[in-house]
């Protein structure tokens, strides 16, 4: 636990290098229900997202997996009619507690979206945006270093190091998505949420992002929503299957894909419905 509670700045400089999962639940959901106006979108979800593991959320469209993901860093706050009940904790602290600063929470729990959404600024400015608004650096040299290490971690440094001043929107789709991942890494989050990060990308770009997720797992806790069951099987250690707003089954990825306990899971992963 103590490694987790080190502050953001020091973590940037000395990332913990342990690759083995620590068997600690980084985030916990207890009886989470989500309502959009009158309509209930999630029913009593209970889940533990383990530290330094990749948790895949799968299920048919409209099953609530993206909704749940967006609860984890309170992105649903942006939606006026959305209401969340139940408990979600980050390091045992309730993130919906009144004392929690949502801005600080989102710095600790970063997010990568379905469609690459680089800001219409230069590549450098895209990465520097987060560190600047959180005041993570004391001078330009430190900022340059964060930009470089973030791009390196996202596997984009070699491709863009000579054109950091050109607009981020000019990159290819896959590069844009890696730029967005680098942008998220730059604020040194503890958890990275990915909402179908490869759905707008071609297979080659997808493979690169998946490799990246493997590498990122060493330092970050990752939750990923995906429609591709092969992808879930390839990148994740834990898999959660959502159906009609319910968390149907949650367990080791291998177990979910080889020996599902629920027949709805069985039906979905074998392609009989969904």
């Amino acid at each position, binding site marked *: 636990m103590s490694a987790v509670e080190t502050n953001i700045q020091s973590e940037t400089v000395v990332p913990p290098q342990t690759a083995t999962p620590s068997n600690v639940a980084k985030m916990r959901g207890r009886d989470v229900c989500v309502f959009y106006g009158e309509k209930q979108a999630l029913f009593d979800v209970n889940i533990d997202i383990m530290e330094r593991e990749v948790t895949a959320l799968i299920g048919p469209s409209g099953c609530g997996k993206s909704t749940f993901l967006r609860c984890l*860093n309170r*992105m649903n706050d*942006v939606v*006026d009619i959305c209401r969340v009940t139940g408990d979600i904790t980050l390091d045992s602290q309730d993130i919906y507690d009144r004392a929690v600063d949502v*801005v*600080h*929470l*989102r*710095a600790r729990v*970063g*997010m990568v*979206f379905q*469609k690459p*959404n*680089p*800001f*219409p*600024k230069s590549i450098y400015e895209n990465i520097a*945006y*987060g560190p600047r*608004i*959180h005041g993570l650096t004391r001078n330009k040299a430190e900022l340059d270093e964060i930009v470089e290490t973030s791009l390196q971690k996202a596997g984009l440094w070699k491709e863009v190091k000579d054109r950091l001043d050109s*607009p981020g*929107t000019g990159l290819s789709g896959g590069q844009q998505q890696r730029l*967005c991942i680098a*942008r*998220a890494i730059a*604020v040194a989050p503890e958890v990275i949420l990915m909402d179908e990060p490869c759905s707008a990308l071609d297979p080659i770009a997808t493979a690169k992002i998946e490799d990246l997720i493997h590498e990122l797992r060493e330092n970050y806790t990752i939750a990923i929503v995906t429609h591709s069951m092969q992808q879930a099987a390839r990148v994740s250690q834990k898999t959660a299957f959502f159906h009609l707003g319910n968390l149907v089954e949650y367990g080791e990825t291998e177990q979910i894909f080889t020996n599902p306990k629920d027949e709805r899971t069985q039906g979905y992963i074998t392609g009989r419905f969904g």
Partner: protein
Amino acid sequence: MSVSMLLAVVLICAAVFYVLGNRRAIGVSGGDSRQLHSRPNYYGILAALWFAIPAIAVIVVWQVLQGHFLEGGIVDSLPPDVLERSADQVRLVVATIKSLAFGGIASGVEPYMLESAAGYRSAHGFSQTLMSIMSLALGLLVAGTTVARITPQTRARNGVERIVKAMLIACASLAILTTAGIVLSMLFETINFFKTVPLSNFFFSTEWDPRFSSAGRDGGDTGQFGMIPLMVGTMYVAFVAMLVAVPIGLLAAMYLAEYATPKFRATAKPMLEILAGIPTVVYGFFALVTVGPFLRDTGDIMGLDIDARSVMTAGIVMGIMIIPFISSLSDDVITQVPRSLREGSLGLGATKSETIRKVIFPAALPGIVGSILLAASRAIGETMIVVMAAGVAANLSGNPFEPMTTVTVKIVNQLTGDNEFTSPQTLVAFALGMTLFVITLGLNIFALHIVRKYREQYD
């Protein structure tokens, strides 16, 4: 047949041809409209268009040329002694005769005029009849041929498409030609103006004193036409207005677009837009009765000598007037910035105001500058508020609490006076208009250039 009558007949005939074309198409298809290249109503529309277009074209061309020929006829019928008079007087006589012919009121009527008027009247009647026949005949010919040629293979749909495209092009070029026409008409009068007044007098003199139209005619002083005090007045008032409108308008737009609940926005935005619908003369009252005296009294309290009519009064009221231009348009542009950019920024832990300042504002900048430009051109062109709130005296002063006047006010002044149209006192209005046009055009081009350079383009 009068022109409006004729137009009505043309429209009725076109409707008839619509039915004919439609029927004929169904007829040639043997009752099975699937055999046709286009749906039957396209054949009808094609026939109707081919009736209306030639017929209306004949009417337009005839109306344009008719006046010229008929006036020639009047001049030919005039007695030789009348023709020996000056060109202006002959024109007056011709106008009198025309007025007589259609029962108008005319003075100085002489017997030969009555005779000419009768001749003109009959010639005009004959011309109108001939026009009606020609117009309808051409329409019948073209549309009849179109209908007769309809086969199942006729590509009526494509034909209609071509005609629609031609009409769109015609409308677009009409708008452009009108602009060109306005500029040209100003240009020629401006050239006339500079034939009597030297360029340096207009552009570099700081004194505005055009005097009366008799001045200069007798070899004396032509008066001073220095535009600098007016131009400075215009820019000063517009500057004060922008100082009021840009911050208020932009911040209001940001509130409406990013913070306000949809319900509040739905009521507040139209209410803000009402400001744009108030006639400027009413703003003038507001300036004259409320803002001006308020500024004066405030000045009194602080021991300052503030004129009720001043640049400040006009600028503040004008600023209020143009707030909705900036707020409403900017609000639209800000709302159009993709949601994904907002979420991207919020997801990194940015606050709402950081997101607006660093992501949304730069992305919406081109549209925001566009709205500011529109507001600025309104401010520069505004006349009524200035007349009522800043006066008509052409002062050159840096003090915003003194009366000043603007280019547009002086244009109105010079054109509505009882000066002769050819005198420099009147023509200066065109020179002023032209200068203002060139300056605002320059500002627009400059602003577009800046926007293109600094915009952050999202896709």
